[in-house]
């Protein structure tokens, strides 16, 4: 018993405990960090290049102005443009000399495989988000998704949580009590 007490009183024991706690804490932090870094996409799609070519968001994510889901373009749609770009279409240029991401796209398109995109903006399935009214009211895509002309793959620009939604809804509808009642109604998103 006395030995145990001595051990506990030993300063190195206390230091060991402290080190252990620190290590466990940092391990937790690292774990949290790994869950927070942007997910790896199958293709590092350069949004910035496309946006800078004046391609509208709705050209590819065409669902956003008429339905809940914005949608993702099919690789057919990708290929519709890329197939016409002389640089890549030219049979003289072998596939292996294409930019690496385009090689991947080619692989998907030729083999008719779906591209498994990893969603960046995601709401839990008890939240029903509808793009259409937002686009119809003139909310710019950048408001939530950030300036895509400066990004390659999409990153999470906003912590998408209820406080953020409600905050914006409250501000936008400050002058219209009827609209506010609708925008702050639980049943608008949760059912």
């Amino acid at each position: 018993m006395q030995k145990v007490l001595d051990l506990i009183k030993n300063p190195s024991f206390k230091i060991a405990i402290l080190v252990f706690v620190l290590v466990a804490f940092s391990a937790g932090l690292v774990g949290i960090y790994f869950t927070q870094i942007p997910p790896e996409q199958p293709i590092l799609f350069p949004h910035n290049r496309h946006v800078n070519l004046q391609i509208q968001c709705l050209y590819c994510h065409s669902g956003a102005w008429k339905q809940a889901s914005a949608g993702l373009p099919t690789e057919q749609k990708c290929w519709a443009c890329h197939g016409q770009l002389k640089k890549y279409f030219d049979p003289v240029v072998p596939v292996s000399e294409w930019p690496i991401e385009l090689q991947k796209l080619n692989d998907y398109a030729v083999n008719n495989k779906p591209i498994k995109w990893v969603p960046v903006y995601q709401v839990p399935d008890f939240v029903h988000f509808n793009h259409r009214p937002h686009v119809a009211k003139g909310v710019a895509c950048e408001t939530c998704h950030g300036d895509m002309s400066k990004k390659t793959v999409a990153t999470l620009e906003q912590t998408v949580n209820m406080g953020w939604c409600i905050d914006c809804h409250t501000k936008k509808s400050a002058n219209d009590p009827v609209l506010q009642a609708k925008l702050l109604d639980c049943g608008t998103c949760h059912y």
Partner: protein
Amino acid sequence: MAVLADSTKSFAHPIEHDHEAHLREEHLMLDPRPRGEMNAMVMEAMTTTSWKFWAVAAFLAVVVVICLGYYWGYMITSGLGVAGINRPIYWGIFLVNTVFWIGISHAGTFVSALLKVFKAEFRRPFTRAAELMTTFGLVQAGLSIFMHMGRVWLSYWLMPYPNERGLWPNFHSPLAWDFLAINTYLLSSTMYLFMPLIPDLAMARDRSTGWRKSLYRVLALGFRGTEGEWAHLRFAMNLFAFAILPVMFSVHTIVSWDFAAAMRPGWSSTIFGPYFVIGALQSGISAVAMVLIVVRATMKNMKYFIRPEHLDALGKLMLIISMAWAYFFFNDYLVQWYNGDKWTDLLLHFHEEGPVGWMWLAMLFFNIAVPWATLWNKSIRRNPTALFAIGFFVNVAMWFERYIIVPTSLSINRFPFTYQFYKPGVEIPLSFGTLALFILLYMLASRIIPLVPVWEVQEGQMAHSLKKFGNESIITISDLEE
């Protein structure tokens, strides 16, 4: 002052008069012992354990681990389906237990605060034992509420705290009041338990060694007994004694609003508040009596502190409350007889003739017939075994009463198509788990904190003396009234 001066010697004096000897034997307040000796007795009671104590404690610990740890974990991971609730009986034994334990916890405050306010001297040796019951009973009540929740891991949403959603609890809901009231009660009863404990902890600190010394040194907070410390404590304890009583009444009435605020036949009734409070006292005071009898029988030196006079007084209280309870119970039928709502009528008949009609009968028998028939008798009141048995049956019957109010009443609603039976499932081990946890906590606490508030007893003894009027020796004039 005279008594205090005598107190050191009186024990050595030969007892001259039979009646006086009898009175001293009867009343703890007249039977002082040297304070050092008394302190030693309490310390001894705390430190003496036998293998039986540890055997029982180990057994209870196993029960707690299995019944609470395992079964609750099982229920959380697989859903409330493992319990017996169904549609429309959405509240079952967990809520029965909640009401029951809150009821138990009521008597602790009742005897320690109400009797203090009314300066009833016999309370002194057992206020702490009763107050301890309040705290631990509330713990069980709280646990039962958590068990009953469908998603207990989100129970913190009941707490009012600022959040980015701007959503707060709904204070229209009796459950939100419950949260406030039970927490207020738990906090204040814990504080009310702790404050009078400080001087005793200081005493224990002065008399112990080893880990107990370190523990008591921390817990006693550096209390010495200076004039100022006593003055602050005295005021605080008086204020608590007054203020905790309305809190106590509010808690149990709010628990009753959980039912009475609902639009259900048989529940929606304004009589529920006082009815629940009286019901709580009925089971709580019986539980105090039971605990005192057990403590007296099992702990060393406790026969000195807890005497038949205390059992006698509690027995009288039980009788009075039983009568009041019977009256409120009758009111349920009285009101129904006048308003004649057909669903309530059906419900009341279902209580009597339904599948648990035997519970209804047992409840009437043990809560009314038994106390009325027995507690008139002084010798029964003073007989620990008899009083324990009565207290036990009163408690069982009060549990039945809550069972009839909660799941049995839920069987009946305005849509006969949906009627169902209630068959408890995992509620049974969990109920035993809470009971075991209560006893275990109590047992462990009885070995850690002085179960008798020594300083309060000594304070009482200091001020009591026998006065002689003619040939009669009495403490107070009220003794003549018997």
